[in-house]
C-alpha cells in the first residue's frame, strides 16, 4: 500500500459512504457535548421524534457556563442555570453519560477527553466547539462543529465532510530555553496567518514536536483552529501510549497492550505526500505576546508594538490600526512596557498540570503586583486535585492569586468571570478578539510562565531573563 499520512489513515478508516464528487459520510467514534452548543440540537431531535444513535459514544459535560467559585452551590445566573438544567434533562431523556458539577470527572471538555482516556489515537472525534482540534494531539482526527452538525451526529453518529487538504507543519531543531509550546503555536499562527490553514488538516511533525510533552502537544493542536485549519494532529508515539495507560476509559490491562500496538500505527508513513508543507526552525521562536485583536497579531516579547503603516496591504493596515485603537496601544511601545491589570491562567489551551507547574514555578516565593488581579482556573477537578497534592495551590495563593474551580471561565467570559471595560489582561487562553473576555476588555495571549511573570512584575517581561526561568 502506498505511504499514507496520519490524516489519510483515519479518514480512510471512517468513510461510511462517499458521495460521488461530493463530501464523504464519516463515522464518528466519540462525540463530546457541552451545555452551550447542544440545547437546540436536542430540541431538533425531540421535534422529529429521533433518538441518540450511539449513546455509548456520546459523553457530556458542563464547562462553558459554570461558576468557578462554589460550583456545586446554586447558580446565580438564571440563563446559565437554565442551560445547565437543559443539559441534565437532555442527558436523562436521551440516556447519555454526564460528567456533572460535583463529579471528579467534570472539567473543560477538551481537558477531560484526553484525561479520561476517551481521546485515543485513530479515532474520529467531534464536539460543538472549535477547540476540538485539541484532541488531535493524541493522533486522532478531531473536528469542531456547529449545532446543526451536533444534532446530525446525535441522530446518525456520522458527519458529512468535504475531504480537507493535508498540511504538514514541520518544526526542526529544539525550542530555546523559556520558549513554550504556546509560544511555538502563537509564532506559527503569526507566520501562516489566521486563515493560513483554511480547508486543511495540519499535522505537526519534526524534532521539536516529538520533544513536546502530551500537555504541550495539546496546546499546539488546540490553537490550530486559530490558524483556520479544520483540525490539528500529531502522530502517536510512546509518549501517547504512556499518557493513556491506566486512564478511566482506555481498555484494561491485557487489552491495553493490543490497543497500544494498534495505536502506534497512527503515524504518517515514511515518504507520504502532503498537499502542502512548511518548515520552521524551532530555534527561531521566542516567547510571544499578542498585541492586537486576533491571534495572528503577535510579536516576540523583545519586540515593539508594530506600526500599521508598515503592513503590506491596505486591509492589513486598516485592521492593525483598528486593533491598536481597540487595544489602546501606540506603535513603537516596547512590549515589556505594557502594564496589565488582570492575569488569567486557565482555558482548554493552558490549564493542564504542567501549565500550572510552569506558572507556579515562576511565582514561587513572589507576590502578585498590587496593581494586578490574578487568577488560576484548573482545567478539571482532577487537575485541581493533582495540583493541590503538589502544593501548587499554596504557591499561587501565597503569591496572591485566586485559586478557582474547573471551567472555561474567563477564556470566553460566559460565567461571570470577566474583564471590565478598558481592563488589560495577560491571558493563557486562545482568543484576543474584541470583547472576548468581557466587552471593552483587552486581551494579550501568552504562555503560562509569561502570564505568571506579568502578574508579579505588573507588566510583560521576557521570561528568559526571569530569575527562576
Amino acid at each position, binding site marked *: 500500500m502506498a505511504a499514507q499520512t496520519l490524516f489519510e489513515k483515519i479518514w480512510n478508516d471512517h468513510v*461510511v459512504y462517499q458521495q460521488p*464528487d*461530493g*463530501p464523504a*459520510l464519516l*463515522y464518528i*467514534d466519540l462525540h463530546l457535548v457541552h451545555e*452551550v*452548543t447542544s*440545547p*437546540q440540537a436536542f*430540541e431538533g431531535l425531540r421535534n*422529529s421524534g*429521533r433518538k441518540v444513535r*450511539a449513546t455509548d*459514544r456520546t459523553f457530556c459535560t458542563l464547562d462553558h*457556563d459554570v461558576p468557578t467559585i462554589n460550583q456545586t452551590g446554586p447558580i446565580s445566573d438564571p*440563563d446559565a442555570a*437554565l*442551560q445547565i438544567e437543559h443539559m441534565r434533562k437532555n442527558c436523562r431523556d436521551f440516556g447519555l453519560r454526564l460528567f456533572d458539577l460535583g463529579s471528579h470527572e467534570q472539567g473543560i471538555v477538551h481537558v477531560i477527553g484526553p484525561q479520561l482516556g476517551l481521546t*485515543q489515537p485513530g*479515532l474520529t472525534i467531534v464536539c*460543538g*466547539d*472549535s477547540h476540538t482540534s485539541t484532541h488531535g494531539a493524541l493522533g486522532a482526527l478531531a473536528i469542531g*462543529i*456547529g*449545532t*446543526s*452538525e451536533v*444534532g*446530525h451526529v446525535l*441522530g*446518525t*453518529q*456520522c458527519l*458529512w465532510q*468535504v475531504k480537507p487538504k493535508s498540511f504538514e507543519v514541520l518544526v526542526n531543531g529544539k525550542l530555546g530555553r523559556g520558549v513554550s509550546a504556546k509560544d511555538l503555536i502563537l509564532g506559527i499562527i503569526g507566520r501562516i496567518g*489566521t*486563515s493560513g490553514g*483554511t*480547508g486543511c488538516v495540519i499535522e505537526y511533525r519534526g524534532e521539536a514536536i516529538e520533544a513536546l510533552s502530551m500537555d504541550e502537544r495539546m496546546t499546539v493542536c488546540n490553537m490550530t483552529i*486559530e490558524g*483556520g485549519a479544520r483540525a490539528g494532529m500529531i502522530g502517536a508515539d510512546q509518549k501517547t501510549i504512556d499518557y493513556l495507560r491506566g486512564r*478511566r476509559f*482506555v481498555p484494561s490491562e491485557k487489552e491495553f497492550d493490543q490497543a497500544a500496538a494498534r495505536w502506534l500505527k497512527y503515524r504518517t508513513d515514511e515518504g507520504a505526500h502532503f498537499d502542502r508543507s512548511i518548515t520552521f526552525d524551532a530555534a527561531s521562536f521566542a516567547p510571544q505576546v499578542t498585541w492586537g485583536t*486576533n491571534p495572528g497579531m503577535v510579536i516576540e516579547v523583545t519586540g515593539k508594538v508594530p506600526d500599521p503603516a508598515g503592513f503590506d496591504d491596505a*486591509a*492589513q493596515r*486598516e*485592521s492593525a490600526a*483598528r486593533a491598536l485603537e481597540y487595544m489602546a496601544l501606540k506603535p513603537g511601545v516596547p512590549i515589556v512596557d505594557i502594564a496589565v491589570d488582570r492575569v488569567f491562567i486557565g482555558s482548554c489551551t493552558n490549564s493542564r498540570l504542567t501549565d500550572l507547574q510552569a506558572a507556579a514555578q515562576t511565582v514561587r516565593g513572589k507576590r502578585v503586583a498590587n496593581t494586578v488581579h490574578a487568577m488560576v482556573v484548573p482545567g478539571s477537578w482532577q487537575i485541581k486535585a493533582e495540583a493541590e497534592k503538589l502544593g501548587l495551590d499554596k504557591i499561587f495563593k501565597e503569591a496572591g492569586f485566586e485559586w478557582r474551580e474547573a471551567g472555561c471561565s474567563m477564556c*470566553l467570559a*460566559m460565567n461571570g468571570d470577566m474583564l471590565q471595560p478598558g481592563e488589560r489582561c495577560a491571558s493563557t487562553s486562545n*482568543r484576543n*478578539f*474584541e*470583547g*472576548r473576555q468581557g*466587552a471593552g476588555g483587552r486581551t494579550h495571549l501568552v504562555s503560562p510562565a509569561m502570564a505568571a511573570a506579568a502578574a508579579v512584575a505588573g507588566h510583560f517581561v521576557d521570561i528568559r531573563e526571569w530569575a527562576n526561568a
Partner: protein
Amino acid sequence: MQPFTTVEGIVAPLDRVNVDTDQIIPKQFLKAVVRTGLGQGLFFDWIKNPDFVLNQPRFKDATILVARANFGCGSSREHAPWALIDFGFRAVIAPSFADIFRNNSFKNGFLPVILKEAEVDHIFRAVANHQQPYRLTIDLPSQTVADNAGWSAHFELGEFQKKCLLEGLDDIALTLMQDQEIAAYEKSHPVPYRL
C-alpha cells in the same frame, strides 16, 4: 431547512477582514436554548456605534452582507448565522470564509458566497458610488451574483451543498438513507472504550 434558490436585495458593506463570530454575536447571547430571536445580538458591540453600517438608514432593509476575507473565523457558534438570518440577511459575500462558519451557514439555508478579491472590491465600490441602495441578485441554480447594471460574477459551490440548499433537505433524513452502511460499520467497529 428553508430552501435557498435566489435572493434579490440591498447590499450592506462591512469593510473589515477577519470578522470573528465573537463580533457577529457575543457570548451573552449563547445562553439561549432556542435558535430564534438572536438578531438582537447581531454585531452587538459594534452596533452601539451610531456610525456603524447597519445603523445607516439606506442599509436598513439589506438582505445581503458583503465583507472581507476570513469572515466568520473563531468560535464554532452557530448562533452567528442564526443571528444574521434573524436580523434579515439571506446571504453573505466575501473572498473567503472560516470553514465552520461556512458549514453552519449551509445547514441553515443561509448562503456564504465566495467571490474573488477583485469582484468583492467591485461590490464595495459600487455600494459606495451609489446614492441609492445598491442591489444584487444571487442566483443559486446558475451560481451567479449580478446587479441591474450588467455586472455579474460566478461563484463555486459543491454539487451536494447546492442540492441540499435548493431542496432544503433535512440532513439527518438524507444520511439515514445510508442506514445499512452505518449499521454495518458499527458492527465491525465496536466501541473503543471500557465503559
